């Protein structure tokens, strides 16, 4: 599935929630179920420094596709990470680098990706795209 198809699927899922609590309960559930990152990637090199919650991100190339794994010490941040991974993992580097992540705003989580929200998520998205750019060169070599 393309990045936009996955985003549209998430938007459709979120449309079922009648209030913020159901939405956050779902995000927390996603956070709990996020596959664990390999411990060796939970180091300073993979740490994206947000002011409050810390985020670790690792990217691997599997054939032509990028696979992301990530973690955070805050569960809501982990839930949003799970959504970002759903959308951006197993995509080509070019698609990742040029992705427009409109689903965040549509499902009402825009504030979590605001530069003033000290949770590391915005830096994570930037880092995912940078991985996309860097790995694009690698694939094309």
């Amino acid at each position, binding site marked *: 599935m393309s990045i936009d198809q996955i985003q549209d699927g998430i938007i459709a899922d979120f449309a079922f929630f009648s209030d913020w609590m159901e939405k956050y309960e779902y995000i*927390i559930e996603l956070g709990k179920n996020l596959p664990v990152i390999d411990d060796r990637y939970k180091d300073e090199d993979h740490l994206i420094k947000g002011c409050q919650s810390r985020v670790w991100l690792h990217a691997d190339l599997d054939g032509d596709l990028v696979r992301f794994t990530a973690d955070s010490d805050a*569960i809501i*941040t982990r839930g949003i990470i799970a959504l970002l991974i759903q959308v951006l993992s197993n995509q080509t580097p070019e698609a990742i680098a040029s992705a427009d992540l409109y689903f965040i705003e549509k499902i009402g989580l825009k504030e979590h990706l605001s530069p003033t929200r000290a949770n590391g998520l915005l830096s994570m998205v930037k880092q995912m795209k940078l991985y996309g750019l860097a790995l694009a060169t690698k694939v094309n070599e």
Partner: protein
Amino acid sequence: METTSKPIQFDVSSIRRQFPLLAETMNGKPLVFLDSAASSQKPQVVLEKIDYYYRHLHANVHRGVYRLSQEATDAYEHGRKVARRFLNAAKEEEIIFVRGTTEAINLVADTYGRKYLNPGDEVIVSGLEHHSNIVPWQLACSHYAAKLRVIPVLDNGTLDLDAFRKLLNDRTKMVAVAHVSNTLGTINPIKEIITLAHDKDIPVMVDGAQAAPHATIDVQALDVDFYAFSGHKVYGPTGIGILYGKQKWLSELPPYQGGGEMIAQVTFDHTTFAELPHKFEAGTPNIAGAVGLGAALEFVMETGRETIASHEAGLLSYATEQLLAIPGLRIYGTAPDKASVISFLLNNVHPYDTGTILDQLGIAVRTGHHCTQPLMDRFGIPGTVRASFGVYNTTEDIDQLVAGVRKAASMLQ
């Protein structure tokens, strides 16, 4: 010493009506504002005074011969008079307008460092200081090859005074401590700290940012050398604060910044400086800020600081009792003497998560390290959720908080 008229009868609902912002909503819910330790809301009288100043009195101060400039100067200097009264300082010359506590501490650390710090000297701070009472001293120490020493914090969030006694020595040149901890709420025994330091002729600077909104401060009774606080935490505007310094120190210290206002005579060979307090007020000051701060301090004194303190003590003890009834909730900072600040954590829940759920419920609390990273390291935690109460908070606010934390606990665990 309170020199204002008799405190008016305290009625929290009439107090709340004086703070327009409290009628706002957040995330579609009525706002429950529990972050006054970061910055308090502003009463109508402060907003009106600032508005009136810009509409009717504004001109640059201390300069013009014309009437308007004189009126602006009077309005600005009125702020200083009120601040003198608020701190019970002996003289207006001892009251310096600064941007806030941070600038006050930087001013003292920089100028005191230049004059008195030498290699091998020591400056003592405490383990519960805000970064703004650590970093300026660290900078001064590293510049003059002096050493920063730290009073340890005990498990209940109080300072280890025995250790403090041992830290004081012939090389100690300054003791800089908070009056009240912004993270734990601990009220430090600053009178005792000042006495111990003075026994060895060491001056003391007190960071009063968290004390000014809650306590009666008498700099003469404390015999403190320097005392600083910020306007915005005491119901006044941002960008204005007060540095109190004993005249003998302020006269001795070199100027902090150069510019207009702070000079007596300038030639290219030599400049002489203005008298106190203007020596430390280079450039056009925050005139409207001083006007607003004066109004805020008058509001606090008219409401009555003992009345405010007793209202907040009631809120603190109610909140402590209610929060501790939540399974798995731990309070950080259990000093017997506390201001109305509560830091807590729920089991293993990250403070960011708790804060996010509370935000959805319209409850404004602070989460994170509260600019006290060494203190968080001391307790081995990444941060806390902090609720802090001001004059306008009610037991209903606390009921909302407790219900919100229970909701967060059920969702996040």
